[in-house]
């Protein structure tokens, strides 16, 4: 039996002034699996992503998280990224003055360097970028535009997925990637995400809406309420939530 890609055990975490948001979260994602996390606002969905990635202001108070067997809390933010953890942000920031291609090349080469590989030659990099941009139906101009500057919400989300396909993380967490997307954008973003589904990659898709899960069909669905996963099931659970809402789970929590 192979090591789980992500193993979260009894994770407790606080934000800012010691406000506990995660209250004993358990989750295991194996290679090749796509997990969906749904839950009411304030449940801790975004907090999970921030704690896993190591964002300042979020502190693990107890519990463990192993990324492919390695203790995540022993690693810096960039180390976790280079070990294969990717967070697709709900609200990606803009970085004026920094071209998309320059940024991606820097990130890609940082990862390669971390793994003792040679940097990717400019030609090979551009080829890869062109390929992934075509997959995501992105106009060539996005290559040299400054990272997320002046991008619409949907364009930013697509850019996140572009980065994901280029950096090829083994474990990706997509934080409400569907928010703000129109029907076409949803289709395209899903296409990008699905292109990475295989026996080696794992994914967590955080969402409010069942609709995304029609495009990115999960293997498992979890309900996150008040900092804990209170129910797990297969994709039919998402349909059930769509119908009944979270009331049942909130009452029990």
């Amino acid at each position: 039996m192979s090591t789980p890609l992500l193993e979260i055990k009894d994770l407790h975490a606080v934000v800012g002034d010691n406000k506990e948001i995660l209250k004993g979260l358990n989750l295991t994602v194996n290679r090749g699996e796509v997990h969906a996390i749904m839950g009411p606002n304030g449940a801790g969905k975004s907090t999970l992503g921030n704690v896993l990635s190591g964002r300042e202001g979020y502190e693990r108070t107890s519990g463990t998280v192993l990324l492919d067997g390695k203790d995540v809390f022993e690693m810096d933010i960039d180390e976790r990224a280079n070990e294969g953890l990717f967070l697709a942000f709900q609200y990606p920031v803009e970085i004026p003055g920094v071209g998309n291609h320059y940024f991606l090349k820097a990130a890609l080469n940082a990862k390669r360097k971390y793994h003792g590989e040679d940097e990717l030659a400019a030609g090979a990099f551009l080829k890869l970028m062109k390929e992934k941009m075509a997959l995501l139906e992105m106009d060539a101009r996005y290559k040299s535009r400054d990272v997320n500057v002046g991008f619409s919400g949907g364009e930013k989300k697509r850019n996140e997925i572009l980065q994901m396909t280029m950096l090829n993380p083994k474990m990706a967490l997509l934080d409400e990637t569907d928010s703000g997307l129109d029907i076409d954008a949803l289709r395209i973003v899903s296409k990008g995400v699905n292109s990475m589904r295989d026996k080696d990659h794992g994914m967590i898709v955080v969402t409010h809406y069942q609709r995304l899960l029609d495009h990115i069909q999960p293997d498992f669905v979890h309900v996150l309420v008040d900092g804990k996963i209170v129910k797990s099931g297969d994709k039919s659970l998402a349909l059930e939530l769509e119908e009944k809402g979270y009331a049942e789970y909130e009452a029990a929590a």
Partner: protein
Amino acid sequence: MTTAESQPNNDAEKLASEKVASDEMQDLVKKDYKWGFVTDIEADSAPPGLNEDIIRFISAKKDEPEWLLNWRLDAYRKWLKMTPPEWAHVEHPEIDFQDIIYYSAPKIDENAPKSLDEVDPKLLETYDKLGIPLHERAALAGVAVDAVFDSVSVATTFQETLKEAGVIFCPLSEAVKEHPELVQKYLGSVVPVTDNFYTALNAAVFSEGSFCFIPKGVRCPMELSTYFRINQAKTGQFERTLIVCEEGAYVSYLEGCTAPQRDENQLHAAVVELVCLDDAEIKYSTVQNWYPGDEEGKGGIYNFVTKRGACRGARSKISWTQVETGSAITWKYPSVILQGDDSVGEFYSVAVTSNMQQADTGTKMIHLGKNTTSTIISKGITAMKAQQSYRGLVKVNKNAENARNYTQCDSLLIGETCGAHTYPYIEVRNPTASVEHEATTSKVSEDQIFYCQQRGLSEEDAVNVIVNGFCKEVFRQLPMEFAVEAQALLNVSLEGAVG
């Protein structure tokens, strides 16, 4: 706005050059101010203090003609009646002008060295440490270097190639003897002796500098550069540079400075004068890395410089590009007087202040002729407890028809305790003028750094990426070889500024 000279034609090339920059950066990040050392050569220097005797001493040491000695003395007498200016947004202890050594030269034989073999090996070692290769490799690279060590020029290379083209590029002291008529014609014509307190001082005691003359229709075949270094404690560096381009001539001049760590403040009051006749162009680039003082603000160079270019001819162009990362205090406004019709003035600047550095810098664009254009792109980065001010003047004279100016001044703040200030002065006396001014102030946000880190970049790399992106527009203006050094310098200057 003009485009850069050697802009890559395709993405691959551009990415490759950016890769080089970040490699350089990686190395330099690990080092302290690496130019912190002193050459232990016995210097032939004057006692501290300034009076007419010292000036005569300097003039005699340089074997100057009578007219120049008189010029100096006249400047000195005028200086005595002036007081140091206090309007800049900088603070420093009062300078004791009598506590400065105004002349220092390394001991050399009476017979000046004719080839590099004859140069004092210790001096060459100094240049080696500074990364200035005064040997055959430099020849192949095609960069002529006029290396000034303290107050005396040591070696000038590539005279042959330049001679063939008719270009004169030599130490000012040499030009005074070989081309007195040219020097007399232009010296002090762009920056008058009494322009300000420090130009008067410079006129009295200027120690060395470059003279560059490009004759009619000649495009100087190589980038020209000059390196300076202040070594002797309490020695003020008072260099003077004069560059003249006749009709249709072109030159690209690079100025790069380094200095060792010292405890006492060192005054650097240089004067640079540029003259362009019809259809001529001067591109003047500077990468300044003088010792900035330690984290407490102790030590460091005072960089009080007056630089001015006169676009005398029609369709002439002067372009200033500067990357200022050093000095304890920087006070300079490279300016352009747009006298000729259709003349163009440009100012591209990146100024970095960190720790306790202070800078009050900017430019003056004076529109006098018809259809003149000026472009100002100023990028200020300030961190820690530093203070930085942009001070710019755009002046359009009554008779300056159709003047155009575009100014963009952006400030980037890193951390909570630094300060960025902007003092734009716009004086327009002609109704056909078009003057645009844009300014932004932003912070390097933690969110941006976190985003970069989550993509695998270290915190330092993240700051570097963001800051270099901020300065991109200006770096693009630098000649290739300086662009790489500039990016590296930027990163070293901001070491420790984040987190």
